């Protein structure tokens, strides 16, 4: 068979207590798209870090075009033809598009030690064409949308193949998790053209996407590659089983447990609008209801969510909680009225990483644990322990720093925080972004638990599927306005196609 572009042979990597990679072998051929899936903690990111030169393997070797190389740094990986598109965005808002694309590689534009901006911008424009992005290279990335930055990230990786001799391998780590349908389709088109020039490793939690785009799929579990299969004759269910290593005991979105909301309205918007974000938004949210909001980036649904939680302020219209008009001047006003937000940027807004699990859980309800001005640590510990068991949070103890937990467990801590705070309305902004299938199911389970207890949930799903599966009702937004409303009772769910029609 042909020479693999990139090959990993019997690589192992251990850390105190864990074996992150256990004798992993893996290869990718020229022009091939290989999917790499696995739950968080399965070893995907460790493998990427090895390929990216952040980790050095304890055993085994990495070969590029059949030659063994020791990758010393992300930069070295890049120069050896391995480009990585990070899950955490590596685009710097303070620099221009061009400067970001060529960050650390300015030498080719140096003239007498000075950077020629004109040449740099020209070269950047070339790269932007490849991702069908029309933004001006001299623009500051701070002024760009999240999705555009993601595209620039990819352009940065692509800039490699016009610059080095060896074949290029591009590692895409969760590239779609922040993209909306439209951009995803674009991305897939790009990957299509890329196949002539490069090989791609595609990492995602969205199994259907993986199957759609990949030729082969590797499944990782517990630091090992447990399965290698051809995409064309594999199914999502199959992949899923290999990942979690068990049968799906019951159906994914727990539609069976979908509660019928009570008539009681807990939150109501009347002609709510915020200049440049959304306008005349009106809806009612009932006790025990999951209200899904679908829409592409820029549809204004994120702005709406943050506005409802008091992070930003409406310019007009009314917001009513339990029938009384409220004006949220800040997040703490919303919390006081029983409205909480599970933010999409978990690491930044969701958690205080150095804080312990317990400290994070009680953060929004601290006064409840204070007697005589002093925090009652015993009470705090007890409550935290209770929620750790209720939400099946995998943590050594309630004193462990939350930052050290896996994404899924971190998200559960955030949810526990709001449950302890006793909110009645919880807004979930991409609650399952970047967390593994196992934890996703747990989160869905939790959503059902909450509604069963009468909480109302507003859901900005990570995928359309999710929105459809979980919601009682669905609002579709486009350009800051509500373009459609769907009832989504169990059995009578609208299809993706129906929604997309109103989204774009």
């Amino acid at each position, binding site marked *: 068979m042909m020479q693999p572009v990139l090959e990993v042979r019997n690589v192992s990597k251990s850390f*105190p207590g864990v074996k992150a990679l256990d004798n992993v072998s893996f290869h990718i051929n020229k022009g091939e798209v290989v999917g790499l899936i696995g739950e968080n903690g399965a070893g995907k990111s460790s493998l990427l870090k090895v390929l990216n030169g952040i980790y050095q393997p304890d055993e085994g070797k990495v070969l590029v075009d059949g030659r063994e190389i020791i990758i010393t740094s992300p930069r070295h990986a890049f120069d050896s033809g391995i480009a990585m598109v990070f899950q955490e965005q590596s685009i710097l808002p303070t620099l221009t598009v061009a400067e970001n694309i060529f960050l650390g590689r300015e030498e080719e534009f140096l003239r007498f030690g000075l950077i020629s901006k004109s040449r740099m911008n020209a070269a950047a424009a070339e790269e932007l064409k490849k991702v069908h992005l029309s933004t001006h290279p001299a623009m500051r990335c701070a002024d760009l949308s999240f999705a555009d930055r993601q595209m620039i990230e990819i352009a940065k990786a692509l800039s490699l193949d016009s610059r080095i001799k060896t074949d290029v391998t591009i590692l895409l780590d969760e590239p779609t998790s922040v993209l909306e349908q439209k951009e995803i389709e674009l991305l897939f088109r790009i990957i299509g053209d890329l196949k002539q020039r490069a090989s791609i490793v595609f990492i995602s939690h969205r199994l259907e996407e993986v199957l759609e785009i990949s030729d082969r799929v590797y499944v990782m579990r517990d630091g090992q590659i447990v399965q290698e299969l051809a995409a064309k004759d594999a199914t999502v269910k199959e992949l899923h089983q290999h990942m979690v290593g068990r049968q799906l005991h019951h159906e994914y979105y727990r539609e069976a447990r979908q509660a019928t909301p009570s008539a009681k309205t807990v939150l109501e918007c009347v002609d709510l609008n915020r200049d440049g974000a959304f306008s005349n938004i009106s809806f009612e949210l009932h006790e025990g209801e999951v209200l899904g909001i679908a829409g592409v980036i820029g549809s204004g649904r994120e702005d709406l969510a943050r506005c409802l939680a*008091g*992070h930003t302020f409406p310019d007009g219209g009314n917001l009513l909680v339990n029938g009384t008009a409220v004006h949220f001047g*800040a*997040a*703490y006003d*919303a*919390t*006081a009225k029983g409205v*909480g*937000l599970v*933010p999409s940027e978990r690491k*930044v*807004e*969701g*958690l*205080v*990483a*150095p*804080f312990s699990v317990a*400290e994070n859980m009680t*953060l*929004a309800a*601290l*006064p409840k*644990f*204070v007697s005589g*001005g*002093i*925090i009652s640590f015993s009470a705090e510990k007890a409550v935290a322990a209770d929620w750790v068991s209720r939400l099946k949070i995998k943590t050594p103890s309630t004193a462990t720093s939350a930052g050290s937990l896996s994404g899924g467990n971190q998200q559960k801590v955030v949810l526990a*925080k709001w449950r302890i*705070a006793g909110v009645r309305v919880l807004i979930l902004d991409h609650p399952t972004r970047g967390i593994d299938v196992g934890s996703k199911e747990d989160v869905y389970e939790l959503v059902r638990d909450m509604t069963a207890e009468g909480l109302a949930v507003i859901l900005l799903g990570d995928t359309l599927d999710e929105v459809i599966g979980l919601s009682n009702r669905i609002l579709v937004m486009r350009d800051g306005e509500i373009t459609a409303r769907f009832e989504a009772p169990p059995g009578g769910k609208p299809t993706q196609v129906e929604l997309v029609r109103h989204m774009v």
Partner: protein
Amino acid sequence: MTQEQRTRLQTWLPLIVLAVLILIVGIYDPRFFSASNFLSVTADTMTLFLMASGVTLVIMMGGIDLSVQAVASMASCILAAYLQQLGFLAIPLAVLGGALAGFIGGLASTKFRIPSFIATLAVSGVVISAGNWFSQTRSVNIPGDLSATYLDWAIGEALGVPNEIWVGAAFLVIMSAVLGLTPFGRLVRGIGAQERAVIASGINVDRTKIAAFTLSGTMAGVAGVVMAARLGSGSPTLANEFLLPAIACIVVGGTAITGGVGSIWRTFVGALIVQVVRIGMTFMGVSVFAQQIVFGFILVAAVAVTMDRAKVLVIK
């Protein structure tokens, strides 16, 4: 060495550094080891510690308070100016003045969203003017009988230990409790570690910040009162050249200037380290010309040892 052992050692490092420094000086000149000397060295450290203890909170939030020196001076002026008429009341009044100054600094920094570095620097200008006003730009003498009546709690003596030390110890306990046991203290840590997450959790962060600055001003006020008591007078320049040493104490103690990690006792030890280095140089007869140089490099070396890098990702 396991992670736990390393972290456990990490917490003791400031004390170890202090012990080593004391040993070095003491072995060079045994008279340093006399109990009376330890007592006076510690007593001399307390004003510095009192001032630094408040700033510690602000630094743990990731901010900084550059107004404490001016605030302490102003407090000394208020005390000296009103002790005659008001008696004991002059003490809370002086401390209150400090609190107010801190409050204004916090207000400016949060409401106008000005970096605390500049906000407090600017406020100290205002405070200096205030100090000049209270003292009529003179240094105001505190008559001995008044100081004996009203300020003995600060400069007198109990159980063979100078009262400065009792005062310092009391505030060491109080401030540690505030930081370690109260919701306020936890929020201070939280803001230093990840402010946005604290905001998103529905906490009134501005209120917490202002409270921290106010507390910092209050402690500067207390330091100013004790200083005035010790020197028997108040003056608008009384606490000059205290600011940088105070911040040095905090950092030498191992509290991260970037916020999030730290504690009051670390500042206490840091203050002792700074003092022992200074006094040690006098004991070892280091030339006055060399002292600044030695002092500078020992500070850097001490921080290099005591700083808890495990919890600080990027060192700026």
